[in-house]
């Protein structure tokens, strides 16, 4: 038993397993388990995982998940995270309402 005040046996907690349930991409609801599985199957770049699982395609455009996923790729490939390509970052910088950019006087005016 641990010294912790609760009565759980912490020595039996499998943190790697716990991590699997973490929702890494909250926009598209993709879990760590899915990301690790697909990296192991050879989808070991951010852009491949994006195309396969849609990570980074939601409203936040990867702001929430990119770092975590790059770290997972780095870990799986045993390559420093600084050497993992960050994946393509696309415009616009922030989601922008269509009416704000819509040009008037085009083909329909």
């Amino acid at each position, binding site marked *: 038993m641990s010294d912790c005040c609760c009565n759980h046996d912490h020595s039996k907690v499998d943190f790697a397993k716990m991590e699997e349930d973490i929702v890494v991409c909250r926009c598209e609801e993709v879990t760590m388990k899915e990301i690790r599985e697909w990296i192991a199957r*050879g989808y070991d*770049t951010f*852009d*491949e995982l994006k*195309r*396969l699982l*849609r990570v980074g*395609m*939601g*409203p936040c*455009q990867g702001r929430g998940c990119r770092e975590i996923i790059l770290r997972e790729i780095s870990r799986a490939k045993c390559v420093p995270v600084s050497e993992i390509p960050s994946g*393509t970052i*696309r*415009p*616009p910088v922030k*989601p*922008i*309402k*269509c*009416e704000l*950019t*819509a*040009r*008037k006087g*085009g*083909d*329909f005016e």
Partner: protein
Amino acid sequence: MSWKRTADAVVIGGGMMGMATAYHLAKLGMKDVVLLDKNTVSSGATGRCAAAFRATWGGELNIILGKACIEKYEHLSEELGMDIGLYQNGYLFMAYSDAQLENFKNCIKLQNSLGVPSRLLTRDEALELCPGLFVDDIKGFYWYKRDGHADPMLTCFAHQEAAKREGVKVEKFTEVTGFKMTAGAVKGVCTNKGYIDTNIVINAAGSWAGRVASLAGLAIPVHGERHEIFATEQVEFNVCPTFLMSYDPDFYMQQRPNGSLIAGCGPSRYRKEAAPFNDAELGDCWNFLEYMTGILTHVLPRTKGVRVVRQWSGMYDITPDMQPVIGEADDLKGFWMNVSGSRGFMFGPVAGEMVAEQIINGYTALPIEKFHWNRYARGEYLLDTAIA
């Protein structure tokens, strides 16, 4: 991961055309198939396209091919064992001029004669299909229920997973640098990763296919044309429940089942320079965003408050008649082309099977010989009045 020094066939290009070819070659019993991509699978036009397929073309060959593709797409998830995000609720074609409406009527006549029961729709029927559509300036509509869309990346990856199960070796970040040839036949492929001995090469490099062919000394007219596109945040699904398309002005818009709207148009609408375009570089421009959000908010006024989350571009593979270039080179035995003419996602699953059958069995049910590029030397062009 060991490098294969010999192969029964080498496929160049990991888009839909190449991946389907590799999968079908292996499925038909070829032992050693290697697929090369200079980037990653689905990183070119397939992973950037508008995700749609249709039988509603204006030329006989495209209708036959499109019809075969719909039949294929309807069963792909089962065949490949992976969901491809299929959605079928037709293309709603919109005519903004009387000339376009006449074109629609001719297309419908041809399509109906080839077993594609497309039909004109009334304004009320169109509004029933797409309740938010601004119809006041539209002269007419036509539609065919079995046209639709699917997730192009998942479709390509599903082929990749199935191909790997059949023994196909996929080499990413591998660029072709040359070919070994003797006495009018291809003997091998040189790449930045090493050499592969093979008697069969299938060039499915899309807009780069002309340049790849030139490495084998062949002059085949395929070049790139950059098209732009954007996706919005996910919104309630009934904003655009059918694929919307117009030829003049040329644009399309659709909504994926996840709620994201996708919209794009031809480059002559927003680029300053005049057509024809011969592009080597991808890129995104503000002009496109302004122009296309203008179209989207006009056609679907409810989208004014919907946010664009991402814009990108992809390469159309342009051929002289905008039609596929498929077949074995007359002067170089074993060197095959499998280029779609900018419809790689749509035609890929069928074109891949067609080419694989022709290579392995020497026969295929579809009229593959019609797509050979030697038609250009004879001055023959395949015509279609329904190309955007």
